[in-house]
């Protein structure tokens, strides 16, 4: 069989959503995904996915699985619809429609970064698309994050290395500062390293903002560090302040929860820097179209996550989302759309205790033994449509392989069954 190449494919291995991937297909397998990083290679892999449709532990016809799913959801008293990773916006839109119809709680992994989202709702944002950072930034400050770990091409494709309009010499046009917040290290490739103890992080950010606003801040150790950093940032033309919005270092032995106030302090600092300089806060997000889940929820409901349709309209329950209601035992049936493997620990652990229906890539391999499992393709590998980059930019997906069922079609078919059973 001859090989074929799908050019300009978008990788959803992380939130960078690099769209310059050339996927080489040999038969029904991916032989190579060119231009990818290690994460991207692992995400594409050979493109093989299970193709099962199961109900009650048995292989069944798709119609039977859908009928069973509709019956379970129709009887549910407190259903949850959860938007897991690796589905397109088209699938997400169809899944939110089901939540609306059922009066369900709607949530997604965005619930894991609730503190940061709530901070941005109180204060707003000073942000930029990734390409704008490439064009403008003359100072890049990595705040407790080395993008090489979870966002491998962030530096080479966007923020640091490439030449831009106002950074004609790429890396040499920029100064890179790594701020190590305890064990959360800044970028390895830095012109300067600054260490801040985790317990001093919020103080340091507040003091930096005070310096930017022209207030005196005393001369303690933290104040000296803060003054040094803030002064550099004020002298820059365009600062990219980069932090990891995701909650913990994957693969690290100790999960390092974000300080709940760090998001707000970073936003406030970035906003204040617009005045003396220009500044954008770049919030790194994981892949699988997680950003799409909160964009879609926002345009359909007005709220980015933890949306409760129980009253007959969307209500925002940022402190009573999926993890909380599952832990309290309030949810009886969960419809999970997307990759079960991408569901955060806190949610996944409790899903074993409720009736679950999973529609998504590798649904049949879900560790929490779903009642109904319908395997679909992975958005971006087997399915087309739209996905969002971490900076809220919508990109097209170019599937290289044909998959099992198409997630959006399955979810729409389920929605149709629920509509018919309505009256």
């Amino acid at each position, binding site marked *: 069989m001859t090989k074929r190449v799908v050019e300009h494919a978008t990788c959803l291995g992380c939130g960078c959503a690099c769209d310059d991937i050339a996927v080489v297909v040999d038969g029904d397998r991916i032989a190579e995904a060119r231009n990818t990083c290690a994460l991207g290679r692992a995400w594409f892999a050979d493109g093989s996915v299970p193709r099962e449709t199961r109900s009650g532990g048995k292989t069944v016809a798709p119609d039977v699985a859908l009928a069973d799913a509709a019956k379970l959801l129709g009887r549910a008293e407190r259903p949850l619809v959860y938007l897991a990773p690796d589905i397109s916006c088209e699938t997400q839109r169809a899944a939110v429609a089901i939540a609306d119809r059922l009066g369900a709680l709607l949530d997604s992994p965005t619930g894991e970064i609730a503190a940061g989202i709530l901070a941005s709702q109180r204060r707003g944002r000073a942000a930029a698309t990734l390409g704008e950072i490439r064009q403008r930034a003359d100072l890049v400050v990595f705040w407790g994050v080395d993008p090489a770990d979870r966002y491998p091409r962030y530096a080479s494709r966007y923020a640091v290395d490439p030449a831009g309009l106002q950074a004609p010499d790429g890396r040499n046009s920029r100064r890179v500062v790594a701020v190590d917040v305890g064990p959360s290290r800044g970028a390895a490739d830095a012109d300067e390293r600054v260490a801040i103890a985790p317990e001093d992080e919020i103080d340091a950010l507040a003091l930096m903002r005070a310096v930017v606003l022209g207030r005196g801040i005393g001369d303690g150790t933290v104040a000296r560090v803060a003054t040094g950093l803030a002064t550099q940032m004020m002298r820059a033309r365009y600062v990219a302040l980069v932090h990891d919005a995701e909650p913990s270092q994957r693969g690290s032995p100790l999960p390092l929860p974000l300080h709940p106030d760090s998001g707000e302090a970073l936003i406030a600092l970035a906003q204040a820097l617009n005045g003396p300089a220009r500044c*954008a806060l770049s919030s790194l997000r994981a892949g699988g179209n997680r950003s799409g889940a909160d964009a879609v929820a926002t345009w359909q409901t007005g709220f980015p996550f933890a949306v409760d349709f129980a009253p007959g309209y969307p209500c925002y329950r940022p402190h009573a989302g999926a993890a909380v209601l599952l832990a309290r035992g309030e949810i009886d049936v969960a419809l999970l759309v997307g990759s079960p493997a991408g569901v955060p620990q806190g949610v996944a652990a409790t899903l074993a205790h409720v009736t679950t229906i999973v529609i998504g890539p590798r649904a049949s391999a879900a560790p929490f033994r779903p009642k109904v499992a319908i395997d679909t393709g992975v958005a971006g590998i087997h399915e087309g449509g739209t996905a969002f980059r971490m900076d809220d930019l919508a990109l097209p997906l170019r599937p290289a392989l044909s998959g099992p069922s198409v997630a959006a079609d399955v979810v729409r078919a389920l929605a149709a069954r629920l509509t018919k059973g309505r009256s």
Partner: protein
Amino acid sequence: MSKARLRIAGGAVYDPGSAEGADGAIRDVCIEDGRIVAELPRDAPKLDARGMVVMAGGVDIHSHIAGSSVNHGRRLLPEEHAADPAPAPPLADPDAVPRSGTGGTIPTTFTTGYRYAGLGYTTAMEAAVAPLAARHAHAELDDTPIIDAGLFALLGNDDYLLRQIAAGEVARARDYAAWVLSAAGAYAIKIVNPGGVERWKAGGRNVTGLDDAVGTGAVTPRRILETLADAVNALELPHPVHIHCNNLGQAGNAATTLETMRALAGRRAHFTHLQFHSYGGERGKSWKSAAKEVIEHVNAHPEVSADVGQVMFGPATTLTADAPVEYLLHASSGKRWVNVDIELETGCGIVPYSYREKAAVAALQWAIGLELFLLAKDPWRVVLSTDHPNGGSFLSYPELIRLLMDRGYRDERLKQVNQKLVAGSTLADGLAREYTLSEIAIVTRAAPARLLGLKDKGHLGVGADADVTIYANDPDRAKMFSTPRHVIKGGVLVVEEGQLRRAPTGRRLRVRPGYDPAVTRDLKRWFDGYACVSFENYPAVELGE
């Protein structure tokens, strides 16, 4: 009620936009297969409109309802959404999937469609979309039912265009504009603060005048305006270039607005939210109305059109690609602020706001909008908008219509506002004009459709789209226009007896101007050099149809 045929019988028809015309004449309006037809058999289904007012469906020439910036705004306003829940409407078709949502100044997509239709509007233009983010805007419009919608593509701060201007490549700039419109699936070209957003992103200060240098002295706001106005005219686009001038919201900005109009003299051009650009006085010192000077220029120049961008008292969300303006508003108000710089193209700024009638500047802005309306000689060229949600929600249009139609009511309202700055305005001197129903029909549907070049909209002539709104003829015009009795969209009865009953999918309005394909080779090189999205992934819609 079938889509196929309907006779709207016995209503008073206000149809200034059709060749036949009608100014309150009692006559039937006949619909077949989504179009207006001359006659129907006697046994065709009938909708009794006796005692009611019949107009074409409303057409909003400038609104912000879908896309990346709008969604950033939505995300910023959870408390507004919580305060304005919108349960799913009870639709007639059992297979229809009605959707709940939330409102506030930036409603959710489904609620936006339902509310526009409930207001008797059947077409709306999303007025500011970065071409790079057009895919997002289309996805939201796909979830915005009923209304036909188009988007305006933001140009004028985009690096590729500025390069062509710097190099004197007029033809290439035109080809590029045509390609962008096609790639974005857009309907018109929108310029926002030409050159100013680019300067703000580059770390400099906003531009203040038409001849400020943008990067290089060869590129100025004036050159950007001329280049794009000429391109639009050469491409024979249905809508002229849609311009948000420099210096929005600044005291004394009327001088810039007039200079912009003079710079484009003889060229077709549409000046949007003119109210925000009609201020006298001096920056940082004093405010006064310059509505009279601005509107007299508009009156005297038939190639110029405008929408007003009326400010209405109450909550608003200021949301614009004019990011430096929002920075200033945040700095002066201390309110929440979103800024998003958009690579190689434009900016985005958002600040929630409230216009209070006891605030001097808000009262002046309110008065200036009304002056523009009341001093405009030609309603076909000065049309209704609030720049939703910037000057107020589209839901405030009925109140605005009452202000225009009812002098007694207007004068009462005027007494209640802060008098400090309105004292010297022509409004305070007493403007007696009252808009007629026919003039309202012009500024809310016939003229916007004509200015947009939508030949089948805004009127009820034979062959027109069967978008029809039927109002109870209530002397309280705010009440009349806020709750139409019936609304028909594309021949489908969507609002029946004041209730939303059907929610068909709206159409997307777009243009496909031709261009020399050589421009795409140059663009590909430029994308490879600077862009962070593949050239092949940039178009939001299929090209080459």
